[in-house]
């Protein structure tokens, strides 16, 4: 019986220690795992990771971004901390560590400054000068001891045809082994990513952390909170993230899902309301159009009211009459409907 008691105590202690470890584990993970998800979702050729023994160089990045192009690099200018530094030796430019402007080496430790910076590269391709390549590096994130990440935007006229376009990716700096980070991604993140646009019921704290910027419902909740405190631009960003996810999904699936359409309509309407609230009606216009368009299809005409109000004076009354007639022709109950009265009253 004594042995049994001891075994129970050991079991309880183990469970306690395990859960304590798991909580601590989660607390650190939530600072780097969401970014590790993004990192792993990037095209494989753009997954650049540095560590204490390896830098990510401009040459390496250019080889991946401008595949098959033989670039002759003539000048590099770095704008960082209100200072411009210029390098004009091709090899030095190619071997330039793109994280070096914010890298702080102290003793054996490597830390990073949060500042953003810009690198401009000039040169030739096939004997002709190419348009300046702009590299903007910002948004420090991650967890020291695990992995840190930087958001890199490259703007160039050599990515697609000859007009300027951009490519975005995260560059990692690993304090852990890359294999370990990838293992964690496969075990923890990959199964969660399937829940991107699903109901949020029963989500764990870790799922919230990883999906908070990827799940339409969570983004919608964030947007509502921002709206409540008049943080309209943040609300637009949160609703916008959810809206674009849903619209892209609806398009690839042939616009069949009525519930997702209804959700997209609500989001478009919320985005528009926030734009109107901060005095930017022109930016709201496309969202109002979309909300009324789905609203008419789903017989939810209240979403058309703001759109009708946004039209120019020449068209407003005509369009309002058209919608009112449309409601009647569909056999909708318009006798005491507030929406009908509002639309019909717009002249």
């Amino acid at each position, binding site marked *: 019986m004594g042995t049994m008691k001891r075994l129970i105590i050991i079991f309880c202690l183990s469970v306690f220690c395990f859960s304590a470890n798991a909580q601590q584990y989660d607390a650190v993970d939530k600072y780097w795992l*969401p970014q590790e*998800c*993004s990192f792993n*979702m*990037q095209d494989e050729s753009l997954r650049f990771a540095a560590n204490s023994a390896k830098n990510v160089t401009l040459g390496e990045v250019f080889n991946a971004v401008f595949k098959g192009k033989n670039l002759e690099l003539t000048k590099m*200018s770095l*704008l960082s901390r209100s200072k*411009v530094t*210029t390098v004009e030796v091709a090899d030095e430019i190619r071997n330039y560590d793109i994280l070096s402007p914010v890298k702080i080496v102290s003793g054996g430790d490597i830390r990073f400054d949060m500042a953003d910076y*810009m690198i*401009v590269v000039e040169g030739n391709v096939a004997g002709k000068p190419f*348009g*300046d390549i*702009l590299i*903007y590096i*910002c*948004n*420090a994130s991650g967890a020291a001891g695990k992995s840190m990440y930087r*958001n890199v*935007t490259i*703007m160039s006229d050599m990515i697609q045809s000859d007009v*300027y376009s*951009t490519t*975005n990716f*995260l560059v990692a700096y690993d304090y852990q082994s890359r294999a370990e980070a990838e293992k964690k991604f496969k075990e923890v993140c990959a199964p969660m990513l399937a829940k991107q646009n699903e109901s949020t019921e029963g989500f764990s704290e870790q799922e919230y952390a990883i999906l908070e*910027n990827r799940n339409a419902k969570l*983004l919608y909740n964030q947007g509502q909170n*921002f709206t409540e*405190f*008049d*943080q*309209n*631009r*943040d609300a*637009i*960003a949160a609703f*916008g*993230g959810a809206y*674009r996810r849903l*619209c892209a999904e609806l*398009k690839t699936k*042939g*616009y*069949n899902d009525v519930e997702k*359409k209804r959700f997209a309509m609500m989001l478009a309407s919320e985005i528009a309301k926030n734009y109107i609230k901060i*005095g*930017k009606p*022109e*930016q709201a*216009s*496309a969202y109002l*159009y*979309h909300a009324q368009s789905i609203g008419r299809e789903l017989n939810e005409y209240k979403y058309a009211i703001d759109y009708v109000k*946004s*039209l*120019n*004076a*020449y*068209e407003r009354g005509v*369009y309002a009459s058209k919608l009112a007639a449309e409601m009647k022709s569909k056999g909708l109950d318009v006798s005491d409907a507030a929406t009908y009265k509002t639309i019909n009253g717009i002249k």
Partner: protein
Amino acid sequence: MKKLFLLAAFLFIAFASFSQSAEDEGYIIGFDKSDSVYMDFKVERPEFNDWHKIGTILNELYGLEPKELSDATVICDKKFKVYEGWKNVSEIDLANPQSTIAGGKDKYIVQVRYRKGGSEDFPDQSSSTTSNVILINVQTAKDGVGEKIVTVCYPSSKYEYEVAGDLSSQRIFNLSIHEYPIFVNTYGIPRGFDAAKNLHKLDIHWDALYMNKAIYNYFDKKGASITPQEKVLFLKSAYNIGRCYFLDGVYHRALPYLAFVSRNSSGENFQMTCKIKLAECLDKLNMENSDVYDDIILDHKNNPKKDPKDLDCVIKACIARGEIYAMQKKVDKAKECYQMATSIDTAKRYAAKISDCMESLNKMSN
């Protein structure tokens, strides 16, 4: 002075040669002889003299008000200078940045910082982690005369930071602008249309857009009291604005103008092309456009089109609608659309495309 003279001569020759073929070629609309009654109206509104300024451009593209711009760093020839205060920043004229260190230079970069949103009590939550920078790259076109290519970009990752601080789903714009917007004060409405058309043909859509905006606003102010003849000009300018925004990739701004013209231009020879453009615009914005295609198809069924340009639009609509039905696995409906397209496409211009669509439909039904 010499440069100005050469430019004026160039523009005159360009305008003269294009004006000879003022007929609409499915692009921007020029003026009709019947519009000449408006010859005396001058497009000279002072508010349209600032369309190359940072404040105007960032407001159009990302909805940033000039007062939200905090500072700008102009980088040019190994030098840089920071311009502080919203007025100094928003007033920088990208076509002619004489007030900055980039004056007279062929290329330069501007890094603009904007103030974050939020409210007085609750500042923006995302300010610590997200960029609040807009990058602008300006280069003089190699084979143009005073033409500059302005690339405006909001740098943000497609992934994690897509949400926080996001300004627009479209993040990069390539605008072609002219160094000397001298012609804006010179033309009446018909000539204004023509000048805009010629600017458009020179691929300077941004300037053409503002030329049309001046005309649009003139009629917009008339509201419901607009005459039928004025209505046509009003619609033409709106169509042109929509097309110019579309050509510059500013789809969310193109949409209201194209939608307005599509709904109100019944009987006009540009209605069908406008509807097709509206459908394309909706597609670019990931919005459902099947109702626009249905509308075009139904219109043709009720009132068969004869003009080749209109018929071309009907064929395009049939094919695109068929593709949407195919995506929805509605095989019979899709087939019906493709068959209708085949019956109209007597010149067999779309035969290969329709055949591909049919093939993938057959594969699906097997």
